């Protein structure tokens, strides 16, 4: 089957399942994206300055572009969309393509999470079946389970937030674990020196700002930092638990059992992983689906379920997941949940 026929057949399934075509803008305001996604994103974008000196870019991703369109239209209801078009990214290696064909679906403003997660994966697997690709396999992960684990651990709040923020950057995350394990993030001699200054600063106007931070803000963070409970033994134990958690890899039908034995072994609260129905539901689509805790750590915006579908030669042909904070980070004032997935057309071609 040719690529064009693939797309046509996949779109037929999307439409039948109630997804409506969305045509997001090709040109986007780069500063808008940088302001929200961070400077690191600039590396990926193809940017130029328009006549007024404003920095514009070609859409780097159709999910981001669709979310921006959704926010511009100020939709109040949920929106089930599909897109088919090109995304443009600066290549970071000779094998990377600058122009990428993307074909995908999104439920923006998703209210019933469990139902919508299942719906997205169902539509994707149906469309793969429609183009007659057989012997596929599915792998899933859930970033939010790690957050639940973190909540139950005995480490300073700052560390919980830190590990949570960097879960999606495995290399730096490993650095963090090493630092936590060796307790090497506060230098006691420097703290003593700064305590003196702390007392001096307590006597000046607390609303005075230094480089956009109020004195009160600086002092309260300093105070919090030096009062952090830190126990070498406890930190070492915590790191061991996290490392063990990240090794969990099991068939989804055995997920509950596996997590329960992990909890028992590490003497954690019995309720940390309760209510796994959204994940267990996925076994309805394919009972051989594999669950891995270490999976889905390469894209920052996922916040819950993450999945990938592979063909018989183990090439990724579709991926997706839940991203409940992306729309807020793109400027929405309220939390808008979303879930989506895209087909990798390049790997479908033989």
């Amino acid at each position: 089957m040719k690529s064009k026929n693939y797309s046509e057949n996949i779109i037929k399934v999307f439409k039948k399942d109630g997804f409506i075509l969305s045509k997001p803008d090709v040109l986007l305001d780069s500063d808008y994206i940088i302001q929200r996604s961070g400077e690191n994103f600039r590396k990926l974008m193809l940017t130029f300055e328009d006549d007024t000196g404003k920095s514009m870019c070609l859409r780097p991703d159709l999910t981001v572009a669709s979310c921006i369109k959704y926010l511009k239209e100020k939709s109040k209801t949920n929106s089930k969309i599909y897109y088919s078009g090109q995304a443009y990214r600066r290549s970071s290696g000779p094998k990377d393509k600058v122009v990428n064909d993307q074909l995908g679906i999104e439920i923006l403003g998703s209210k019933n999470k469990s139902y919508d997660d299942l719906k997205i994966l169902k539509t994707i697997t149906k469309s793969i079946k429609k183009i007659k690709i057989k012997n596929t396999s599915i792998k899933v992960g859930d970033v939010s389970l790690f957050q639940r684990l973190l909540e139950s651990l005995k480490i300073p709040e700052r560390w919980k937030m830190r590990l949570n923020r960097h879960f999606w950057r495995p290399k730096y995350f490993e650095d963090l674990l090493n630092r936590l394990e060796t307790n090497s993030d506060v230098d006691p001699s420097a703290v003593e020196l700064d305590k003196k200054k702390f007392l001096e600063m307590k006597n000046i106007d607390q609303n005075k700002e230094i480089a956009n931070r109020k004195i009160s803000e600086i002092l309260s963070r300093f105070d919090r930092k030096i009062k952090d409970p830190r126990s070498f033994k406890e930190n070492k134990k915590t790191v061991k638990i996290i490392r063990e958690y990240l090794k969990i890899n099991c068939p989804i039908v055995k997920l509950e059992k596996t997590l329960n034995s992990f909890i028992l072994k590490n003497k954690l609260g019995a309720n940390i992983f309760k209510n796994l129905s959204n994940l267990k539901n996925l076994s309805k689509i394919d009972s051989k689906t594999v669950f891995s805790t270490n999976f889905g750590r390469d894209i920052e915006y996922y916040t819950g379920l993450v999945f990938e579908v592979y063909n018989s030669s183990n090439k990724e042909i579709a991926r997706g997941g839940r991203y409940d904070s992306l729309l807020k980070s793109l400027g929405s004032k309220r939390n808008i949940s979303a879930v989506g997935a895209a087909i990798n057309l390049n790997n479908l071609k033989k």
Partner: protein
Amino acid sequence: MKNLITIGLPSKGRLKEGSVDYLRKNNLELSSNGAERNYFAEVKNFPFIKIIYLHAKEIIQRLSDGTLDIGISGLDLLNESPININKKIEVKKKLDFGSANLVVAIPDDWIDVQTVADLEEVSFDFRDKKNKRLRVATKYPNLTNNFLVSKGVTQYKLVPSLGATETYPFIGSSEIIIDITSSGKTLRDNNLRILKDGLILKSCACLMIAKKSKNKEILKKWKLLPKLHQ
């Protein structure tokens, strides 16, 4: 120019003085026509060498496009240059002048921030509590991005600076800076402090050559590089 070796030297400041001294120590005595603002010079007894004084940044550019065969410039400027320029230049020798460090500096009164990890936390506070990005002023955007991202700091916005970067946090143009410093005095005088693990690069003046110099044969014939390499 055919059969002529072109050497680019920094046109002002300590880098210029250091470069001229360095050549003199290696028996290359410079002579110019005496005019103070003359951009060209010759080398006594070496009629095939032509000296051009250029901005240190431009020396990197001209080495990459082959206008210069040899040049002296800062390692910081070479490392900051884009990959397509950088890969055309080879560092032959690190020299013992022009040393300076590229560092992350923050307002001294931010006593809760000692390390890059602290900075990372503060940058998230800016995003989550103020809905802004921490602004970083620098003349070195590439080195800054590589360093911050490798240390887990991703929530920031670059503010390109052309000079007097030390003033930026206090005039409301940025919160922190990444800049080059030799003694740290200017930073201290401006109420800035270097983060404990905020050293990005130890820079110094370097002898550099254009990898694809058309005059390699003459360089070999006159053994110019071994002469400079002593």
